[in-house]
């Protein structure tokens, strides 16, 4: 059995077993419960992205609750567009850098950053400032633009997304940190944590042609991030997801949402943007699939003002 077959089988059987982790590292199974055991979600307000992350992650028990010494980490920011970070279309680079630093301090052996960008990847990595930020933090920036890096993996229990080509680092890494930016989206309403994971798969067109909302939700059946950090500092309110100088407006909300529960993170993000979570179809569908909790009232939320 070669590595590729192993991964495929691991993906199939591991994920089929439901909550059992693909590779059996404990952090993934207990990721949600080990988060200091006190809070399910941290919401931070009033600061700059890097500083807000320091406070938020501390409330969840620090990065050490998610990253153990010697583990490999893969971080998925939104670096999809060849536009500068002030445009609010991509994740704040300083936040990415700070997350990398926290991972390093927690003893991560390798930290990878990747995004299957929509615009040309070299230009997008550079213009968004993500490449420099990641390198400064001590991460390795990985290309995600060639099909060779993607493994075809079955999605257990899926109706639309039965199989998907996933970047192998997403399957291999011990810890998977999702760092989206909250934005308006022309067809899905908003884009946040779940929608951001369209940048770890190869064929976006398949999602679009086969019930976009359903595919976005069903990816969670395969692999859920260990941690989601939603950058809601400067939020695009219209003209998203790319934004243009014409017809898009930005709102500085100075917020950040951190949670191991991707559905809860997106529900809180929807509220922050100004939408009801159940009105965003993929959030409602993910909750139905029991991928996380959409009802924010039932969660223990740390509300932190900086």
């Amino acid at each position, binding site marked *: 059995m070669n590595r590729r077959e192993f991964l495929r089988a691991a993906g199939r059987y591991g994920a089929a077993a439901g909550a059992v982790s693909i590779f059996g590292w404990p952090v993934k199974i207990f990721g949600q419960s080990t988060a200091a055991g006190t809070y399910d979600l941290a919401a931070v307000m009033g600061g700059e992205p890097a500083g807000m992350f320091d406070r938020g992650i501390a409330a969840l028990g620090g990065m050490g609750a998610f990253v153990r010494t010697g583990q490999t980490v893969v971080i998925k920011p939104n670096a999809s567009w060849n536009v500068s970070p002030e445009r609010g279309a991509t994740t704040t680079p300083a936040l990415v850098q700070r997350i990398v630093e926290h991972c390093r301090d927690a003893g991560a052996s390798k930290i990878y950053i990747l995004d299957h960008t929509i615009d040309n990847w070299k*230009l997008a990595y550079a213009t968004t400032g993500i490449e420099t930020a990641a390198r400064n933090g001590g991460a390795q920036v990985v290309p995600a633009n*060639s099909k060779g890096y993607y493994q075809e993996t079955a999605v257990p229990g899926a109706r639309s997304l039965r199989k998907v080509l996933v970047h192998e680092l997403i399957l291999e890494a011990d810890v998977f940190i999702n760092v989206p930016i909250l934005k308006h989206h022309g067809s899905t309403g908003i884009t946040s944590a779940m929608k951001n994971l369209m940048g770890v798969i190869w064929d976006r067109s398949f999602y679009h042609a086969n019930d976009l909302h359903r595919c976005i939700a069903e990816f969670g059946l395969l692999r859920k991030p260990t941690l989601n950090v939603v950058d809601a500092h400067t939020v695009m309110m219209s003209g998203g997801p790319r934004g243009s100088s014409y017809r898009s407006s930005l709102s*500085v909300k100075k917020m950040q949402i951190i949670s191991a529960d991707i559905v809860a993170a997106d529900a809180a993000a929807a509220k922050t943007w100004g939408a009801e979570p159940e009105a965003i179809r993929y959030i409602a569908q993910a909750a139905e699939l029991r991928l996380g909790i959409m009802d924010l009232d039932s969660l223990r939320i740390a509300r932190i003002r900086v």
Partner: protein
Amino acid sequence: MGKNSKKAYTILRRARITVAAAVFILLYLSLSLTGPLYSSILEFLTSLQLLPSLINVIFAGASWLSAGFVPVMLLTLLVGRLYCSTLCPLGILQDLIIFFSRKVKRRRMHPLPPNWSVHLTAGLLPVVLAAAGIPSLLGLLEPFAFWGRTFRDFIVPAGALASSGAVEVFKLFEVYLAPIPFRGEPGAVALTAALIALLIFFTVKYGRWYCNRLCPAGCALRIMSLRPVWSIQFNLEKCTSCGICARVCRSGCIDVPAHKLSSDRCVMCLDCLEACPFGALDVAPNYGPGRNPAREKVRETTTGAPDPQRRKAVLVTAGALIAAGGAGILRAVTGGSRKSAGDTVIPPGSRSVEWFTSRCISCHTCVSACPTHVLQPSFFALGAAGFLQPVMDYRVGYCEWECNACSQVCPTGAISPISIAKKQATQLGRVEFVEDRCVVFTQGTACGACGEVCPTQAVRMVPYLGDLTQPLTDNAICSGCGNCEYACPVEGEKAIFVRGIPVHQPREVRKQLQSEPELEVPEEFPF
């Protein structure tokens, strides 16, 4: 001349090889890599290409600073076709083929007898057609264009294959690299491969056969180097007629019994100078007091019989020049042949179908430079006369908003330099939306792939049913970049596509609705 001059010739020959190697490697690097250094190297080297720089300056109005053809012509009038052995990438490629074929087997090339009429026809007909606004034959034969296609259709795919193997190896060491991307038309690759195979065959068998039979640049330079100021000449006093020089000659330009070296066919490889064991070959002036006296004897012996080849040559040249003049007048009167190309979109900076198709020699340098691979060689999309000219293929890629690479590398000005700001304000085509094919309408599920990627909001999503949104197009602000067409997930005919327009025009650039982000930090947590 004695040992010293022999030593000098060895140095000269090595200098020729060094310059050729440097040109070849720099051209390879500057075509492969991006950055200001590489683009200025590429610009410099392409400006030295005879016919491309001629078209660029004379027909596309480029600055005389890029008129590399002037120094090249002067150099040729002075010392002959040094261009062919040091600056022409296809010439250097043939020298590499000769080098390796001689390594494999000590073979004797079979130079074909000179044939002026074939070469003048092959050399001038493309020029005449190009003057009439049909540069496709010129593009097929012009050496830089031939090389450019060789690079793009042969070297890049080979590199892509090798690099994807290398990437797999590096991955084992947890180093993640990006393989060289190649996306393209297999037909173009097959055609180039066939032409390279022919070139290799003729080069191995006949040496620089292409350069003295088919090459339009070679033809022009032949005419200019009939009697350069200096050329390689026999010294009758030293020559033993051993024939070593003719054996090493790659151009078949040495007639040993007649002690004659035809400077017009000589590509100045200088091999014979180094090979002659008796120092019987020298670089000597053709004019003035320093003229080689021994050469006069040759002249006397050969002047008696007029060369029928030359007469034919004069006739063909005269005929071609008249035809070229006629073609030029015809073009001026009719205003070029093609004014429209159906729905085909041509790259930013190419102004109009007429401008582009009459200047592009299909060197595919732009195709190699395009980061999104949207520029693809066409076969008949621009008509038979536009054979191999590149077009925007929105099924393969889209025109990157912040990019003008193609216009920066085009050696002929078919794609004129255009700033990114101006490009963003230009319309290359117009968007068209077909509701009956759209996922939102056929399946009733959300999509919005087109609206998501549109950089101008010429396609944006507006409410349809419930929370579903549908695309709404606005052609006043459409740039024709093709992002929407590329992203559309519909199989077969896409639901949204760009129709090319025959003449590029300014698009309406609307004022921003909102320039500054609003500070709206909520008072309370919204949940």
